[in-house]
């Protein structure tokens, strides 16, 4: 079943999106974490009134590891017809951030950032400084780990802890040691011992 196989380990193969050819409407810009807040403030005062979306991507083997992606839309906050709205400009701001590195929160600029930042924190473990209510949103509050990270096992840590039968000759852990601390070989050993006893 393909769903239990590894996702591709290709973090290093992905170019930073800023150097790739652009195929959608947005203007793409890459910003360093230190300049992020100032740049977003400038964009907000430039008329980018809506934060359409805020997400993250985990490029496991790249430095810096994560990309936090801000999708902005230039929409006038007043009643307008279709012709007045026209084709609003779109902006995509990417910000590379390393594990443990913090980003400034933008929920005072755009209120829509509130849940979006909570979700990125919940699923990737990226902390937004200045967010007034940064707690888990999708996962239970006492959940361990960050599920959308690439080194988080596809089938969840519970499955990872139980030894798997020998015919499952593939590990669903992408790289490194799983959170359980047991590598694939150790699991195989355990199954072997259980069979012999």
């Amino acid at each position: 079943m393909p769903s239990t196989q590894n996702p591709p380990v290709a973090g290093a193969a992905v170019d930073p999106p800023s150097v790739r050819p652009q195929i959608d409407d947005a203007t793409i810009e890459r910003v360093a974490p230190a300049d992020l807040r100032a740049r977003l403030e400038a964009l907000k005062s430039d008329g980018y009134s809506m934060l359409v979306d805020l997400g993250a991507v985990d490029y496991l083997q790249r430095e810096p590891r994560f990309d936090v992606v801000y999708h902005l839309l230039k929409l006038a906050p007043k009643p307008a017809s279709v012709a007045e709205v026209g084709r609003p400009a779109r902006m995509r701001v990417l910000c590379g951030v390393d594990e443990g590195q913090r980003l400034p929160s933008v929920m005072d600029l755009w209120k829509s950032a509130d849940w979006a930042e909570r979700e990125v924190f919940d699923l990737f473990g990226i902390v937004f400084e200045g967010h007034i209510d940064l707690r888990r949103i999708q996962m239970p509050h006492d959940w361990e780990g960050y599920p959308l990270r690439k080194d988080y096992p596809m089938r969840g840590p519970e499955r990872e802890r139980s030894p798997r039968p020998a015919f499952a000759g593939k590990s669903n852990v992408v790289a490194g040691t799983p959170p359980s601390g047991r590598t694939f070989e150790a699991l195989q050993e355990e199954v072997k011992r259980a069979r012999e006893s």
Partner: protein
Amino acid sequence: MSVYTKPLSDDVVSRTDNTMVLSMGPQHPSTHGVLQIVLEIDGESVVKADPEIGYLHTGIEKTAEGLFWTQAQTAIERMDYLAPESNSLCYALGVEKLLGITDRIPERAQVVRVLVAELTRIASHCVWLGTHGIDLGAISVFFYCFDLRENILDLQEATGGARMHPNYVRIGGLNGDLPDGAIARLDALIAKFPGRMRELRGLLQANPIFQDRTIDVGYLSPDDAIQYGVTGPSLRGSGIAYDVRKAYPYCGYETYDFDVPTRTEGDAYARFLVRLDEMEQSMRIVEQARRRLETPGPVMIDDTKVALPPKETIALSMEALIHHFKLISEGFRVPPGDVYQPVEGPRGELGYYIVSSGENRPYRVRTRPASLYNLQALKCIAPGNLIADLVVMIGSLDPVFGEVDR
């Protein structure tokens, strides 16, 4: 503490003396799914509402990373389960941009895509209207709505074999052409629709009880709507005619003649009227698409690197057999890159930010869920209203929790 109990945030618990905290949901019948709202109330009026989501989180974005590009579509359709075609259409458009085949999608496939996307919008609005009516005690509306939706689901079943998740829109085109008899059913639906719409309007639009419950309830100013990232009918109910179909046309929407209904009142009644008008506009598009269906043609891109070769060629051609085997066993590869593709779903701007690493599986599929951002605006519109009006406000924002929680 149970896994399913989330701690309250400090600012909800620290309240003034006159207020109390009340938990509404997550199994309340009027919350349209599993939504919990932690309310701070002063008597009967809401001082603060803090929606708690995540009870339906199923990790669809993570699941999609482990599936082939085509397989991921089956998971993605399950996010907004009331409008599966919008989800799969958005994803397919995004992947087609990454593949660089957007210009080569056959004309007939584009027309049928528009057709199913608009039908799914009507079906989704039917569920919204029926449940919105039930919330306010208008039970009979529900049956009329679901009868209409049933006709559309029958069509969906005819196209893809499944009522709820047909997986009909595929990367490169469609699963297949419309089956025999689908056009006749569609014509019957088009003929039935105006009368049914009149009935629905007659039941609610001028109903004094319905008006009392919705007018001036849940006011959302255009400024707040933009701040909270509200899109779709909820944004247009506040007067801003932003519609992705007009702003960034896809599938040839620029060639269809339709209006974008807006209201400037910004209350629950305005959002109700916008959605009703939108159903009629959708049917206008469906009628135009129906007329374009007279010309036959292919519905899948002529590129065996993406699309399965016709079944009858497999026995005759070695090439076709190889392509068939390769596509089924390892899928196709998509050039590295990232793309953000928006479409106008029934709830607003539905977007997919898709990152490809050049493999046969998506590296990351980030959904921009319209419901999540619309629901977030509840924090803004609920304070000052009565608890009893909260169900009106939730209903008027039309969240779908498969999409909110994913």
